[in-house]
């Protein structure tokens, strides 16, 4: 098989892939291709028919399909090659990309590869929820696919486990379509989704949210008949005696998203155990030179606007890489500390300003993020609150750096 040469192969035609492609093209890198497994580009936005997208990127509120079409239309106008119905099944560290479609098996040899495969949902199996295995237990994204893309109703009496954003959005969606959503249960002592979704999707519809509760039993031989819910202690262990049964035919799980990196692993990309996405430097370059990652495959975002912005910054670096086959060495390590779950990137060069992305592990009030080096604060930012549901970002101007020693990012209460 003779591989086709491309400057850049972008794996995934969702928001990250589209935004990086457009930026590359506009900066003169035109020999690029987006490989998309679905029949249409747009990624998960295609099924997100609710609004609230684009407030940061476009200063207006759009539905998911509208937000996607801004990028798809632009890409088409520019003439960017988007090949749909094509699944990438192989990727090597030398950037040989193998893809399958009904038109055949195609291989690309790329100067740079952008990983933009997004994420998948955590399932019942990953949580190991006890109980039987009836039909009617599904993740929120699957329910959303059926209802929004397939015009198919998945149940009438619904319990939702996990207060992730998609779960809350599906609570509203199912209610609007005539289902009865009985309650949302969250194992953490705080919600895991955005405050605006709690307001607009639960409170507006009178759907109760119970914190520190989880499902401890699933009942029904054929179709779900009921679930047992228990209160949990501070170690998330169910408290005996608090069990309560709820009759329902549908259990929707919104219990977390996992970056989809099976392809990255094939290429030998190293993953960060905290984000489950690749370890990357300030250029979004993975540990494998020439392979870059952005969007939800890198770390799960709460707002698509930040996916687009991250992908555009990534594309700027890829432009340099394609032209020179090298990027400034990133010798300065970045370390996260304290209640921060993670900080990206994990290494910087000191030669350009860097936007750090981070997320706290638990909610905090009146806190301060500081970025320091050699014991000296370089920049800091005060926050009224920080919650796990919202990613925080902070820019470090490169002029502030004093040495090549590690940079520390911490958040602490004031």
């Amino acid at each position, binding site marked *: *098989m003779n591989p086709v040469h491309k400057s850049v192969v972008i794996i995934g035609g969702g928001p990250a892939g589209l935004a990086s492609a457009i930026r590359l093209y506009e900066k003169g890198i035109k020999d690029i291709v987006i490989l998309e*497994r679905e029949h249409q580009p747009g990624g998960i936005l295609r099924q997100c028919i609710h609004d609230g997208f684009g407030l940061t990127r476009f200063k207006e509120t759009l539905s998911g399909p509208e937000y996607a079409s801004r990028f798809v239309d632009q890409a088409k106008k520019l003439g960017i090659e988007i090949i749909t*119905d094509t*699944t990438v*099944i*192989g990727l090597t560290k030398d950037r040989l990309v*193998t893809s*399958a*479609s*009904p*038109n*055949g*098996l195609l*291989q690309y040899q790329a100067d740079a590869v952008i990983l933009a495969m997004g994420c*998948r*949902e955590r*399932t*019942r*199996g*990953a949580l*190991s929820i*006890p*109980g*039987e*295995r*009836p*039909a*009617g237990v*599904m*993740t929120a*994204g*699957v329910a959303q*696919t*059926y*209802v929004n*893309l*397939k*015009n*198919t*109703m*998945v*149940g*009438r009496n619904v319990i939702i486990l996990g207060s992730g954003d998609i779960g809350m959005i599906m609570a509203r969606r199912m209610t609007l*379509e005539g289902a009865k959503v009985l309650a949302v249960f969250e194992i953490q002592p705080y919600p895991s989704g955005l405050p605006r979704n709690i307001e607009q999707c639960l409170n507006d519809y009178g759907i109760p949210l119970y914190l520190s509760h989880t499902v*401890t039993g699933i009942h029904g*031989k*054929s*179709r779900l008949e009921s679930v047992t819910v228990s209160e949990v202690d501070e170690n998330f262990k*169910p408290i005996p005696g608090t069990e309560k049964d709820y009759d329902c035919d549908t259990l929707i799980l919104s219990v977390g998203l996992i970056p989809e990196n*099976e392809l990255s*692993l094939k290429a030998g990309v190293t993953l960060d155990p905290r984000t489950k996405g690749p370890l990357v430097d300030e250029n979004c370059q993975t540990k494998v030179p020439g392979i870059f990652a952005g969007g939800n495959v890198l770390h799960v975002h709460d707002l698509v606007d930040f996916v687009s912005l991250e992908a555009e910054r990534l594309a700027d670096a890829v432009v340099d890489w394609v032209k020179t086959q090298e990027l400034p060495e990133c010798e300065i390590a970045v370390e996260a500390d304290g209640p921060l779950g993670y900080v990206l990137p994990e290494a910087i060069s000191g030669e350009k300003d860097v936007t750090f992305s981070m997320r706290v592990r638990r909610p905090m009030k009146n806190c301060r993020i500081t970025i320091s080096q050699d014991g000296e604060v370089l920049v800091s930012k005060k926050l009224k609150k920080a919650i796990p549901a919202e990613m925080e970002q902070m820019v470090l101007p490169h002029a502030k750096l004093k040495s090549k020693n590690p940079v520390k990012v911490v958040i602490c209460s004031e």
Partner: protein
Amino acid sequence: MIEQDTTVTYDCLIIGAGVVGSAIARELSRYCLNIGVLEKEPDVCCETSARNSGVLHAGFNNKPGSLMARFCVEGNRMFDQIAKELDIPYKRTGKLIVGFNEDDRKRLEQMKATGDKNGVPGLELIDKERIHEIAPLVGGEFAMWSPSTAILDPFQYTVGLAENAAKNGVSFFFSHEVTAIETDEDGIYTVTTTKGSFRSRWIVNSAGLGSAKISTMLGIDEYTIYPCRGEYFILDQKIGPMLPVPAYPVPNPKEGGLGIHLTPSIDGNVFIGPSSEYIDSDDDYSVTQHTMDLLIKDGSRIFPYLKKESFIRNFAGIRPKLAPKEEGGYHDFVIERRDEIAPHAINLVGIESPGLTSAVPISKEVVRLIEEVETLKTNPNFDPIRRRTETFRDKTPDEQAELIRQNPDYGDVICRCENITRAEILSAIHNPLGVHTVTGVKYRCRAMMGRCQGGYCQAKISELLMQETGTKKEDLRYCREDGWMFTGDVRTKTETDADKSCEKEDAL
């Protein structure tokens, strides 16, 4: 599945389409007989046959002289031939039974002596160094090594047997639960099911968990099945390379199981389990918190690399045991013809582990018992060969390119975790037995068995299944007869102007 014809009198009706029922159906189709299989579930392989470790046992756990020992050793020996005929994925990995202390060592020596007596080939006791050569990450101070043990795909095995039986003329009737069996003055059986009645000269009871009930319907009311549940975890394929062979502890003889072990699956996952717990109901496939904790604790002793993030699913199986809890251990298979009570009936009760391994020898025993009563005429058209659909995932790029050239559906990857293509899914739907459930597709082609558990592909597969079988949304079933998937459309399209303008807006 075919429609029943009430005017037909079958030569033989087999009750239960697990691996044993399917093997009997195939074995009997070597003869000129009109054979039907009655199954209460919507597919083959819905209970114990599907819910086990997927291991072809060697036969050192069973009492010398027992049917279990004989059929297990035979089943292991003849499996190469069966797998070749039916195109069953399997691998002779061998197996380790690891020990930690002197008690374990004594029991391993006994086990080896039992195995030698049963005719199990190549058993040897090995030291820690050899364990590490065979499986570097498996714990234990010493072990017994059984080279003839293999891993296989239990779904493909049962489906393969059943498809081949169907090809040779056997009729399968799914969702037909037997409720009564009567005989008339000519000795012809009338079998009443939830979907009509059937007549037959012979009955074979291979109903597994339901075998005592069917036995009672035949008038043989002395058996009780004690359901004994075993729970499992399935681990991500990323763990697969760490465990090249099944690793078992030395079993506790009282328990009536083989101990919590780790088994690589033929598709590269790892199973932990099963536990062993007597339960009251024969269809409670629950997994429980206390057992999950136990599996992790016991499994970690043999394989200390169990991390929660590698868990992709739990499941449970139920052993149809004849030995009650107080007694423990194993009761031998009951395979009998009781002419004084039920002539022309072969009664199989308590076919638990090693039932998967023993299925074909059991089926040959059934034929032998029938032949003691009447002479069977060989079916000249019997064709022992069944081929699986070509799989895309395990091919080289050149072979994959060729597959797509021949059939473009091979280029449409629907299950992203397992790389299962539209071609394979369509072939699963249109298999010779017919598929009516989502799990029927899953069991046949592995779609939805990966780490995302159908998160990406289930919607596409259920849509394809409805399309190809002409099933309405509200009639689609997940696994069982009442396991509905959907209530119908979210919104029904009507041709009013208001709706049309709505649709136009949607399109924008």
